[in-house]
């Protein structure tokens, strides 16, 4: 990554988040954003000296907003907010998710409506660029008013003091030690800094953004897997014709059908059984099911993309509005706008895997597979067939159904009933990420089966032409497998193909696919 990303609160996209979170792309604050931040900061600065109550600047938090705070204490108020809100529990978040959360918080503040200093954002970006990562417990956020606890754990590292822990250069250490080693100065908290750091659903969106990126890539892997399986099962191509799909014009289905046609173009196995009028649903309805998943994912992409560039703070400082009080209390921190899409994402990705598992079942079931060897057992070597990996896939898709329970449907009143409806969006995001990981393994298992099935077809009919796309898929996935030890367990084969998909090895296999994002 050599091109630096400049954030301005308005132009961040999913790809940028992945680049920074996973690939260490450099990131800086845009100059335009800096000047906007300074203006709103100046307003808050003068508000602390005024008598008028401004939420969280000279009042307590949550239901304690009823209590007025002496302006002399506004910086202690910020510091206390961060400390008392650092109430997370459970396993520590992975580095990439934490980095994405930091970037998203920085971008939200770069919008210049939070009344905080540019140095807050610049410190976050210095940490990203120096690859120093706060240790943030993954559990304990209700997603409203934002991911308070996880962001407060980040705040502990930003704020000068004895608290907070980081991962730096492969070691865990105190924030004080790590930040000193990285040469980054920690901050004295000022008025509203505490709120500016914690108020928004950035962990939800961070996990969700990475999961969405992976889901988009997974749909492409699933379409490649589908094309390979359909071809190995000597499918009928009429179900994928453009003229058919134009009559029920869902854009997702149209895309999937087009992709299948492209991948299968040139195949001599397709339509090689003229007596077969139509295939089973897991083959024939691939455009309808995967297309619906594409449409659902597109909805999630739209929502998350808005959130990536949204102000999520409370109150917001809007200088253009009339009147003395430029601070507007509202509910921008509420995680629901991303929570629901991420619950939808879970359903979509679970369906990607459900369909994949059923194709795998056909591939491995002698009576359903157009004379492929039962369980795809090899005819060359004494190895057990694919029946156990199919069982593994079944376990994974079943687990997804339990994880698919919509977290955002739940709410438990908090904070003396002041925060009486919360999003639970963070749980939705964490479950979505788990569903994507499970689904990726299912598709990997299908590809493992499809490779065997296509290789069998080739040995059965030497010289037969496969689809241009499926042939390349077979070659690439086959290369991954032939790189393994001859005695590798099914487990090792599945994990190798899973890693291949995760790293994008399947992308651009002669695909005319329009990118989702």
């Amino acid at each position, binding site marked *: 990554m050599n091109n630096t990303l400049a954030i301005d609160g308005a132009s961040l996209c999913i790809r940028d988040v992945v680049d920074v979170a996973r690939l260490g792309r450099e990131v800086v604050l845009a100059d335009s954003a800096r000047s906007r931040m300074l203006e709103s900061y100046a307003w808050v600065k003068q508000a602390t000296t005024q008598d008028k109550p401004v939420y969280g600047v000279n009042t*307590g938090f949550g239901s304690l907003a009823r209590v007025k705070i002496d302006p002399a204490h506004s910086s202690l108020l910020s510091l206390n*907010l961060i400390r008392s809100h650092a109430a997370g529990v459970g396993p520590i978040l992975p580095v990439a998710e934490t980095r994405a959360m930091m970037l998203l918080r920085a971008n939200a503040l770069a919008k210049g409506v939070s009344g905080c200093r540019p140095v807050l954002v610049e410190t976050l970006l210095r940490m990203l660029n120096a690859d120093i990562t706060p240790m943030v417990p993954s559990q304990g*956020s209700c997603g409203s008013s934002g991911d308070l606890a996880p962001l407060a754990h980040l705040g502990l590292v930003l704020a000068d003091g004895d*608290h907070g822990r980081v991962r730096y250069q492969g070691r865990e250490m105190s924030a004080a030690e790590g930040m000193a080693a990285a040469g980054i100065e920690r901050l004295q908290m000022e008025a509203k800094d505490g709120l500016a750091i914690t108020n928004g659903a950035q962990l939800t969106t961070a996990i969700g953004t990475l999961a969405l990126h992976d889901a988009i890539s997974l749909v492409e892997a699933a379409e490649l897997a589908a094309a390979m399986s359909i071809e190995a099962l000597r499918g009928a191509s009429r179900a994928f014709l453009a003229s058919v799909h134009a009559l029920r014009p869902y854009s997702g289905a149209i895309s999937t059908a087009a992709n299948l046609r492209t991948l299968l173009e040139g195949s001599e196995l397709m339509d090689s059984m003229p007596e077969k009028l139509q295939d089973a649903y897991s083959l024939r309805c691939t455009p309808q099911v995967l297309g619906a998943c594409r449409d659902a994912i597109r909805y999630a992409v739209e929502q998350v993309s808005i959130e990536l560039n949204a102000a999520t703070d409370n109150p917001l400082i809007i200088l253009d509005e009339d009147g003395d009080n430029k601070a507007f209390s509202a509910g921008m921190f509420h995680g629901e706008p991303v929570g629901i899409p991420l619950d939808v994402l879970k359903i979509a990705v679970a369906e990607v895997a459900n369909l994949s598992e059923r194709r795998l079942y056909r591939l491995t079931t002698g009576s359903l597979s157009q004379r492929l060897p039962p369980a795809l057992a090899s005819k060359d070597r004494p190895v057990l067939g694919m029946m156990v990996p199919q069982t*593994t896939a079944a376990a*994974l898709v079943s687990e997804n159904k339990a994880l698919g*329970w919509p977290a955002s449907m739940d709410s438990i009143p908090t904070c003396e009933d002041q925060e009486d409806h919360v999003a639970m969006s963070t749980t939705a995001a964490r479950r979505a990420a788990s569903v994507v990981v499970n689904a990726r393994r299912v598709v990997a298992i299908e590809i493992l089966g499809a490779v065997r099935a296509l290789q069998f077809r080739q040995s059965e009919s030497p010289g037969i032409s496969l689809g241009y796309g499926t042939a390349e898929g077979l070659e690439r996935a086959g290369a991954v497998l032939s790189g393994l030890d001859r005695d590798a*367990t099914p487990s090792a084969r599945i994990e190798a193909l899973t890693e291949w998909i995760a790293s994008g090895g399947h992308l651009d296999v002669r695909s005319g696919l329009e990118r989702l994002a």
Partner: protein
Amino acid sequence: MSITLDGQGLRCADLHRIAHGTPTSLCEDAATQMTENVASMPDGPSILEQKRHWLVGGFADTLSADELCRVFILGHCAGVGEPLARPLVRATMAARVNVLATATTGCRPDAARVLIDMLNQDVVPVVPSQGSVGAAGDLAPLAHIARVACGYAERPDSILDYKPNAKEALALINGVSMTAALGAVATVRARRVLDVAIAAAAMTMEAVGAGAGCIDPRLLAARNHPGGIEVGERLRTWLTGSTQVVHENGADAFSIRAAPAVMGTLVEELCSAETILERELNGSGDNPLLIDGEWLEGGNFHGAPIAQALDSLKVAVTSMASVSERRTFRLTYGQLSKGLPSFLVKGTGLNSGFMLTQYTAASLASECKGLAHPASVDSIPTVQHHEDHVSMGPIAARMLLELLECAADIVGIEVLLAAQALDLRMRGIAFDAEGEQFSVSPVKVAPAIETLHSRVREVIPYWEDDDVLHPCLAAAGKMVRDGSILGESLSW
């Protein structure tokens, strides 16, 4: 003290001890019976021999018996995902030994002894946690164990040099021993969380001056449920000598008043789950079985009996956790906590006190609801129409363990807050609407409650000004898991 596995007397608590390192051995009588069982085998090819064509296709006739076993076990090593925690793998190994020790599976004692050796030398295979549907058994996870036991993967020379025969290769993997083992460990954890939850409820009742009617033995006995009666009795024991929890206080909100009903349900679910799991642990979870010199084929590997018990347990643990969260909510809620300050600290607004701990509890309680989704209602046909209904029990077991982590932290938060509330009562500290402190008469709390409170204070300080809450939550969660709040020091 070593635990002897004899195929009939294994308790959930025993398995939990083996999980955490207690040595184990195979009962000599059971070994003798296993040898006799093998001797009763009818003449002719073994079951795996008969199935070799089905398993390995055209190579069946060219493979030696050893090669056949190797292909069979390695071919089942198809697990994926995070490795199972070592104690859980140990519990799974011991559970499988006990199935073999029933002397009905046609296995020689060495098939069990090799696993015993591995347990006692702490040779614990890496077992991916995902990939089993819980019928025909936990095939993939058990195959990852068998792979080491049979010497198909590296293992120390000090382990018994063991090569399986065809039936043993099957018997090592053909049952839901991982599900049962995880379930057994979960019951021990659930019992501990429940014990602390009852203590936490008593602390909260004392702190808010609850009405005593809801734990009156006559009232609870009048509704027959033994769980509710037991919880009531245990709450009364904690509250013996209380001057705060009295009948005159009247009726409280449900999270207090119905605590015996909700937690009592878990008492009953736990008894039921333990009974079912212990039947499984001491049952012949294998196929086929060798009984009276005859091979009998059936479905003893199917996880349904325990899968559904574990799903029910998830529901009961969720209710217990969720009612604890509601008591935590009350403790933080100035208008509901009978004179305690909002968030249990001086209400100056500068301090948020324990505000966020309740958010954490709420978030965890919500997670529990998702994890409580019953895994066993699902089934997906596998293996060429042959295994067309499966149990999904291992998913239920894993989610139950995850749910218990959430529940332990939720109950820990109640303990933390109740201790703070008790401090305010014991010191006679109150605050007016402006946050000004004034004195009220200090309360003398019940002796057992005072003991609980002082155990918390040995680890977690009384809270005045805002500071980082996370270490308190971690410490409270630990006190639940290791039982130290109850004066114990136990493995989780």
